[in-house]
């Protein structure tokens, strides 16, 4: 896993909370910084892809770790 500047644990939260929390957290980051998100909602995989495409914040990585879904999003 690459470096990240902040981590958001969205475990146990279901749609649309992972996206909403991510948006809020990203707003607090500087451009270029990376947010690592951990989620248990399987729907979040597609959701973060869509979020990244729609908002223009690149999704650097999307994978699984320890039974949870992990995403790396860079603030544009």
């Amino acid at each position, binding site marked *: 896993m690459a470096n990240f500047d902040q981590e958001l644990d969205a475990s*146990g939260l279901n749609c649309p*909370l992972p996206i909403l929390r991510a*948006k*809020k957290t990203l707003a607090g980051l500087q451009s270029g910084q990376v947010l690592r998100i951990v989620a248990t909602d399987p729907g979040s995989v597609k959701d973060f892809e869509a979020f990244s495409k729609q908002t223009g914040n690149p999704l650097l990585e999307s994978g699984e770790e320890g039974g949870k879904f992990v995403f790396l999003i860079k603030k544009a």
Partner: protein
Amino acid sequence: MSKKLAIIATKGTLDWAYPPFILASTAAALGYDVEVFFTFYGLQLVKKDLDLKVSPLGNPGMPMPMGMDKWFPVMGTAIPGMETVMTSMMKSKMKAKGVASIEELRELCQEAGVRFVACQMTVDLFDMEPSQFIDELEFGGAATFFEFAGESDICLYI
């Protein structure tokens, strides 16, 4: 130029409260400009103190525990107290599964800049007091709604 989403919320039960708030908050998170117009029973969703219920009566296809939806007679769903029981069961299920509460979703919408407009006509119709509603609420009529809806990319009737 961001895309616009207009939603008319016309229902006031717990199960019908989710679609407008989930769609509005998610669209806002994706960069949409969102306005929700609450009319008729949708006004229940913008009261300060939310007391939303869900009823199995009149809700065909509603999944129920113990396969009740297959054998429980419709007459049974009209028994006094059933609505309260069903509502608490649904709320516990939502909590257990990490689903946001309506209060939380509504707050997230407002934080994300979603505009809430209440239908003045139905407020008057049902003799409701403006003080019963949340503060961040505009009051308007159908024409107000069309001003935004006419420019919207997506318009939903819920």
